[in-house]
């Protein structure tokens, strides 16, 4: 039985439809990341599940039960808000305990549970502080603790790392998966950070313009994005997009880049003659000193370190700028100036220029 099942949800506001025909299921213990740019309707979706908004159409089942009539307090959820939504007039302890007081009468049990989750989240020392005395990170952990403390079967996390600094976000991204897995809850996790989505999700549901365009495992979303839009959202630096209309030569699709004809593997043959967008991840472009068979000449315009990578801005002879990424930052050998580049042709993604849908490689 799915813990969360959303069927054909529609939700609109005065300004227009926000969600249309949304369906999603999440199994017990599964972490489903709802990913999308801001304004895509992610938060609305969580609010619909939490019961603080009502869908215009469609149904939501929690643990197999239609919850159309259930107010938020009857849905047995835990939720952490993006802006933390801590109660400013209560101590951190009371904030966390508030998720228990409605159902649990024994103060001893409440105390034990709160202490436990506080210890787990390393905030035991600030339990008596008011929210305004907490650092952002402590606020975030308090909010999380409040969502977790009652061991809800279903946990809704609305971009909980959005408002914390980079270092903390990094730490939490490491900590959270084990924490969430340990809770055993079904988690719906909203984020607009693809790395977070990749790091946490058993499954990523990509929400674009009010609808899911892809629901799949992180690897799948990255390797085989359903649309160009999805491909653009995952990956940093972003994927290179090159419009092309490949022609067929020797049973292979061939396209032109930087004055050189490049051919794609055989499974791409079907795209020949179509107006396409080629998506080439920066790490699929290999820059070399010396030219080789499939390489084309480029000029290295700029080299920027990014995280643990180096990003190279390349300019082809026909003036197109593309990005390449190389692992490691100490590429002392790399120089501004002329060089050669070649593609990892197997990793090229081909999208239909009109619809943006991926047309090759076709998913097996």
């Amino acid at each position, binding site marked *: 039985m799915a813990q969360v099942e959303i*069927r*054909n949800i529609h939700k609109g506001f005065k300004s227009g439809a926000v969600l249309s025909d949304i369906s999603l299921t999440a199994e017990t213990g599964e972490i489903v990341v709802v990913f999308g740019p801001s304004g895509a309707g992610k938060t609305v979706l969580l609010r619909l599940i939490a019961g603080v908004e*009502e*869908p*215009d*159409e*469609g*149904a939501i089942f929690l643990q197999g039960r*239609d919850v*159309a*009539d259930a*107010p938020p307090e009857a849905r047995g959820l835990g939720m952490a808000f993006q802006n933390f939504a801590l109660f400013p007039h209560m101590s951190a302890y009371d904030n966390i305990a508030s998720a228990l007081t409605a159902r649990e009468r024994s103060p001893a049990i409440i105390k034990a549970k709160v202490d436990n989750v506080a210890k787990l989240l390393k905030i035991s020392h600030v339990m008596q502080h008011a929210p305004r005395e907490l650092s952002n990170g402590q606020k975030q952990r308090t909010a999380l603790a409040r969502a977790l403390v009652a061991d809800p079967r279903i946990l809704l996390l609305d971009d909980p790392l959005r408002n914390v600094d980079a270092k903390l976000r990094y730490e939490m991204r490491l900590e959270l998966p084990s924490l969430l897995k340990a809770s055993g809850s079904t988690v719906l996790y909203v984020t607009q950070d693809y790395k977070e989505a990749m790091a946490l999700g058993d499954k990523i549901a990509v929400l674009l313009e009010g609808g899911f365009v892809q629901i799949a495992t992180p690897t799948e979303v990255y390797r085989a994005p359903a649309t160009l839009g999805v491909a653009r959202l995952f990956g940093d630096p972003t994927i290179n997009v090159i419009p092309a209309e490949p022609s067929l030569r020797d049973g292979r699709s061939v396209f032109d880049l930087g004055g050189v004809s490049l051919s794609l593997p055989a499974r791409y043959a079907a795209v020949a003659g179509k107006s396409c967008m080629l998506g080439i991840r920066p790490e699929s472009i290999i820059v070399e000193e010396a030219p080789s068979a499939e390489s084309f000449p480029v000029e290295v315009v700029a080299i920027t370190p990014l995280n643990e990578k180096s990003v190279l801005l390349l300019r082809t002879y026909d003036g197109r700028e593309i990005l390449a990424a190389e692992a490691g930052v100490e590429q002392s050998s790399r120089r501004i100036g002329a060089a050669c580049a070649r593609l990892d042709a197997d990793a090229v993604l081909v999208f239909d220029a009109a619809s943006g849908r991926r047309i090759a490689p076709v998913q097996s």
Partner: protein
Amino acid sequence: MTAETIQAPRRRRKTKLLPYLLSLPALLVCVGILIPFVTAVYYSMLRFRLNLPAMKGFIWFDNYINFLSDSEFWNTVRVSLLYTGLTVGVELVFGLAIAMLLQKQTRFNNLASILLLLPLMTAPALAALMWKLMTNPNFGVLSYLVQLAGVSDFKWASAPSTALFTVVLVDVWVYTPFIMILLLAGLRSLPRQPFEAAALDGVPRRFVFFRITLPMLAPYMITATLFRLLDSIQQFDIIYSMTQGGPGNTLLVFQVRSYLEFYQYTNVAKSAALLVILWAITYALSNIFIKQWLKLRERARGSA
């Protein structure tokens, strides 16, 4: 996909009713007030004096039409507008000046602004009584001081020429702090950059005042002004306690006049007609006011 998923979700009825349940008691308490209002409108279309019951009759708009040619009525309109204009004008200028004097957040300025609240906390009827005592020609300290200053024949509220001045003075004493508080809040919430930039550029202060301060403060001033306008045109307490509308007809503003029409002449119809006209004026003003207020509120919320 099963059939049940297609049906529209059942609304949670309780949620839909809740806001009505919450606001209805307040509304019901006030709706009782609408009944007298409707009655008043009805009375205003009657010939109706309590002491001439025989001549009671429905005369449509004759009471209003009679007002058109009634110099006493126009006097009431004139006095009410004059009183409103003077009080609001003086209070606005005065309140703005004080707010600007106290703009800087120092301990002294804060203390001063708190002390200035005191007149506002005094009941206007009692304030009028206080000033009546102070302007008493025999022992009033103000009469004495004015005499010391060489004005020997100043009669305060007792002479038609100075009565308006006197009640306006009391109104100013009571309500200037209100405008001052609003404008002080407004001034202190203005962004600093434009002023700092102007100071750096050596812009003359008069220019800063007219081109930066005033326009930025305008929404607050409009709100404060409308608020006072609505109160001032309905003034009763101060005028009634000071002079009951006299001397002569110098201070017969709407509410004082309709009070007298009702209680002294038992002319219910005329009293009601006067009040309906006053209501129409205030309704028009309050519409402008509430619109302006909502706009300002949006802005305040947006920047918050």
